[in-house]
């Protein structure tokens, strides 16, 4: 059987276009120029599609829209079925946004010898297709398949295009995620077996499994929950399962780091929302304290470690770990404000941290080193770059007026009524966030000029450089291309800081549905409203 | 006297054969030990045939003999070829393949 609903062609196109793109780019990889242009063209088209999909989406409509489904393995009731709800939609839009920027940012990067731009961008497009699939899959088996496949392009992206210790990083990344995935596989099968026991025929349709599993006894749910949780906690990553991320981020090329932190990791938190809460409501409530502890520990631990890093890219990884703590806190605080906050946090973190990583990449491209100690006083040479770093930084310390504030505020204010203690600790994380961001900014941009490359450009250590002169030296300020890459992000950071409504409106219904499936109710009720499941 | 003794004897022979495989170095001898094990089995087969009062056991013993003969053919061929190469029949000398 194969069903489809309105707009399903959109989703199908969203899934297929990058695949086609990857194929085309591979075919063209002989000539860097054309390959690059083709990749960019496809990614932009994909973004356009994503925008259309967003416009098509009816926030007030059905939970899952633009759905289509085919049989795959009838023996196990496995379908190839995709659909989007508000949460998946915004994530897909973010993917569509980031990939062109990543391609633009990697336009002139030098790759290890023997590697072609074509291959690089093709892998990125492939990864894009797979991640879109992961967010859109509505068949648990299909989700698992894509969840694992997703690793392979990323493995090659890190392993063949990364830095000095790329082999170690790639294998570590792969094994961590693969182990998590296998443990999840046990739970996936467990759910299926449960379905077989209950209604004779097994199924992997998400909606069906939710019905079956959510009514299972607590103990069963706990075991299955843990299986899924392991995979998602590794992906997200939550402390103490995080140690693959610093290595991966440090070794991956900048663009790949953006995808890794901005998109792949979101699969974990997305999984919390899409699978853990609806499928295992009892277990979720039972184990919420555990997750909350991990989340809050992550916030503090990540922030403190960030300030302790010597390597800029590792710094970025720990910053993300702290942010993922906030997201997890919001999800498991069980209030619609916090949950909406977490989803918007996923979006905003992709934008803010994505920009932060890109800017850091531009810094590294100029300073030629990833050690913080090799930088200082750069603002004099490259004021615009400095401004960009500051903007990205301010957003990731969630200053009001930037997009991240809305989400962090929602997470905290929403979590407070249910989990006051955790929230208070997390709020302290705000101070630490300011600490590590300003620390980085001061070390890189302020003070006297430090670092061989910079001093060389500035002419003598600690000299007061006239930017007009500095610009003529080796260290130039942002090029037009780089500005073009960062501009959309700046616009979004400020725009969503003032008008988050578009995102909130799309996300809220999906979150309500999730809350309702998990039989949760807001701690602070505004009276007239009651949950109705969709 | 009860057939049980034959069973015990065959078990004993089997064990002797097995131990022989473990302790002897010469490939031929090792192989002979294996033959001993097979024949120990034959003994018990025949005994059981007696106990169960059916002929099958005895017939099986014949089959075992045939198979053993076939094994001898193949085995000696292999052992000969390696003996010609190494000028020794000690199984301990051939351990290029390890770890």
């Amino acid at each position, binding site marked *: 059987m194969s069903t489809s609903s309105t707009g399903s062609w959109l989703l199908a196109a969203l899934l297929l276009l990058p695949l086609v793109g990857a194929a085309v780019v591979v075919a063209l990889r002989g000539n860097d120029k054309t390959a690059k242009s083709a990749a960019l063209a496809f990614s932009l088209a994909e973004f356009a599609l994503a925008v259309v999909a967003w416009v098509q989406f009816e926030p007030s409509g059905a939970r899952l829209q633009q759905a289509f489904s085919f049989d*795959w*393995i009838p*023996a*196990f009731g496995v379908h190839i079925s995709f659909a989007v709800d508000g949460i998946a939609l915004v994530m897909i839009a973010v993917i569509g946004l980031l990939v062109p920027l990543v391609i633009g940012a990697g336009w002139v990067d030098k790759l290890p010898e023997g590697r072609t731009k074509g291959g690089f961008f093709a892998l990125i497009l492939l990864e894009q297709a797979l991640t879109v699939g992961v967010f859109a899959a509505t068949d648990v088996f299909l989700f698992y*398949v*894509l969840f*694992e*496949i997703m690793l392979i392009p990323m493995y090659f992206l890190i*392993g*063949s295009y990364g830095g000095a210790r790329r*082999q170690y990083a*790639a*294998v570590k990344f792969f*094994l961590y995620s*693969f182990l998590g995935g*296998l*443990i999840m*596989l*046990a739970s996936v*099968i*467990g759910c299926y*077996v449960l379905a*077989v*026991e209950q209604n004779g025929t097994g199924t992997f349709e998400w909606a069906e499994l939710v019905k079956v599993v959510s009514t299972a006894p607590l103990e069963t749910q706990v075991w299955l929950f843990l299986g899924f949780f392991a995979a998602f906690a590794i992906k997200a990553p939550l402390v103490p399962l995080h140690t693959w991320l610093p290595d991966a981020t440090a070794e991956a090329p900048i663009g790949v780091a953006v995808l890794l932190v901005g998109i792949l990791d979101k699969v974990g938190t997305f999984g919390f929302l899409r699978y853990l809460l609806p499928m295992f409501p009892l277990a979720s409530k039972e184990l919420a304290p555990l997750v909350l502890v991990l989340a809050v520990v992550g916030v503090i631990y990540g922030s403190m470690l960030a300030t302790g890093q010597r390597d800029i890219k590792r710094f970025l990884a720990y910053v993300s770990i702290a942010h993922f703590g906030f997201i997890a806190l919001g999800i498991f605080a069980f209030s619609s404000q916090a949950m909406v906050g977490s989803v918007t946090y996923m979006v905003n973190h992709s934008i803010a941290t994505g920009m932060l990583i890109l800017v850091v990449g531009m810094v590294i491209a100029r300073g030629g080193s990833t050690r913080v100690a090799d930088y200082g006083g750069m603002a004099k040479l490259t004021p615009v770059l400095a401004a960009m770093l500051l903007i990205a930084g301010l957003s990731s310390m969630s200053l009001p007026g930037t997009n991240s504030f809305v989400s962090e505020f929602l997470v905290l204010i929403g979590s407070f009524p249910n989990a006051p203690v955790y929230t208070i600790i997390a709020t302290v994380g705000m101070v630490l966030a300011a600490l590590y961001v300003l620390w980085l900014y001061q070390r890189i941009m302020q003070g006297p000029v430090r670092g061989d490359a910079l001093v060389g450009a500035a002419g003598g250590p600690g000299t007061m450089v006239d930017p007009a002169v500095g610009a003529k030296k080796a260290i130039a300020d942002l090029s037009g291309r780089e500005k073009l890459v960062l501009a959309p992000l700046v616009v979004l950071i400020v725009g969503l800081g003032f008008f988050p409504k578009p995102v909130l409106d799309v996300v809220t219904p999906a979150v309500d549905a999730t809350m309702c499936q998990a039989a949760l109710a807001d701690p602070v009720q505004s009276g007239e409203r009651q949950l109705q499941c969709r | 006297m009860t057939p049980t003794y034959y*069973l015990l004897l065959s078990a004993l022979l*089997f064990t002797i054969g*097995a131990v022989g495989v473990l302790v002897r170095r010469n*490939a031929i001898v090792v*192989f002979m030990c*294996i033959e001993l*094990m*097979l024949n*120990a*089995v034959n003994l*018990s*087969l025949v005994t*059981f045939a007696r106990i*169960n009062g059916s*002929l*099958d*056991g005895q*017939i*099986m013993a014949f089959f*075992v003999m045939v*198979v053993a003969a*076939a*094994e001898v053919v*193949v*085995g000696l*061929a*292999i052992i000969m*070829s*390696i003996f*010609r*190469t190494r000028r020794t029949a000690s*199984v301990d000398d*051939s*351990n*290029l*393949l390890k770890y």
Partner: protein
Amino acid sequence: MSVMSSVLLLAQEQAPAPARAEAPPLTAIWPILIVLGAACLSVLFEALLPKHLRWPGQVVLTLLTIVAAGVKLVTYVSGAPAAGETAMFGTLAVDRPALFLWGTLLALSLGAVLLIADRSVEPGGAFVATAAIRPGTVQDRAQVGSTGMQTEVFPLTLFALGGMMVFCAANDLLTMFVALEVLSLPLYLMCGLARRRRLLSQEAAVKYFLLGAFASAFFLYGVALLYGYAGSVRLADISEAAAGSDRSDTLLFAGMGLLVVGLLFKAAVGPFHTWTPDVYQGAPTPVTAFMAACTKVAAFGGILRVLQVALESTQWEWRGVLWGVAIVSMVIGAVLGLTQTDVKRMIAYSSVAHAGFLLIGSIAVTEKGLSSTLFYLLTYGFTTIATFGVISLVRDSSGEATHLSQWAGLAKRSPLLAAVFTFLLLALAGIPLTSGFVGKFVVFEAALSDGMGPLVVVALVASAVAAFFYLRVIVLMYFSEPAADGPTVTVPGAFTTAAITLGVIITLLLGIAPAFALDWASSGVFAIR
């Protein structure tokens, strides 16, 4: 009595069955008859054909045989009774699983034979011209150059194949024992026929032979004890006796133990795997492929039948023990594989780990357990054939370059081969969209629904560990710089290409659209007569 007569028949099967009062229904077992008959025929070829005609003659004959047997099988399956039937006076049970296994064996052996027959990769083929010549001598160096090869390998292959097919269908333990020997003896010899590295090859043969004989002694003693227990070697009778009888259970369980040990040895399940790495490494690669794929299929076919037919009623006693064995096997395979430096040895240890997974499916005594194990065998077999096919292509001046360090940076030299091998490794690791994943999935599904959760978790962890050494090879091929005097990748001849393509395609097909194969595998259960 019946046993005797039937076995007599079995021994002279190539001759058309004599007309008797109740003529045995041969339609069901035509595939076996064809294979064994052709085996004898090709012995005659060896004896009569002039040297230059032997190779083409043998190849044609062998391939035709397999195809013909396959056709016969298909035609029979279409009209076969769902419950299955017995042939040769009940010595052979031709039921759905047996038919599935036959099909699998024929298909796999087709691939293996293609590898064996190839003469372009290694000029003159992977096999020595005259095994009798001493390695290292003048004649030996001469024959390395010569393009002749020992075509006896073809009849040997066919005999082994026939033995395997009988082994899967054997309905009583004696038949099983004879079949075991029929499939083993040729393999012992084939291991010793490598053209290069003959010392290793011969050593492999000796080891395999001595240990194999040792194991079959155990098996036989087990048969004897069970015979003593049940008064019959028929699987059905044994299960009956085990279900309810007053005889001493010591016989039953001692016999069962010895029997199972013999089978586990053939299936290369740890801790009875010790021969595997050495033999896999020493034997000529095509033979290794044949062993790794077909022997596993046959052995697990036998294990499944014994466990599910004969010992079904005592599963609560042996299940715990086999749990332990499965865990040991998976751990040994995964852990020891980590530090291997020879590609063939590595695959050998991976096969030990896979044997553990297969055992999980086998001890789930349910229809699901049966069908999932059968499916797993199918997927694993093809992946393995293709894997060894690829391995046989990477060579340097001294023959195959199997040391991992020689594989460094292979992707730069020949991206296609690296890609194919990567795909196969991912399949062995069980990454989705490969047959390996579906196989693992169905087996674990069967195990979980039979309440073996902990075992499944162990298996999953083991496969995560195992994934590391597959990744190691990928890392070597893609992320490392090629060695200066690295091996070259020979362009495969038509045969090897065909074999590899077959394996890869089926691996991919069963990964993407496994539905049809799953249906076959679950089309029926063992016939208990």
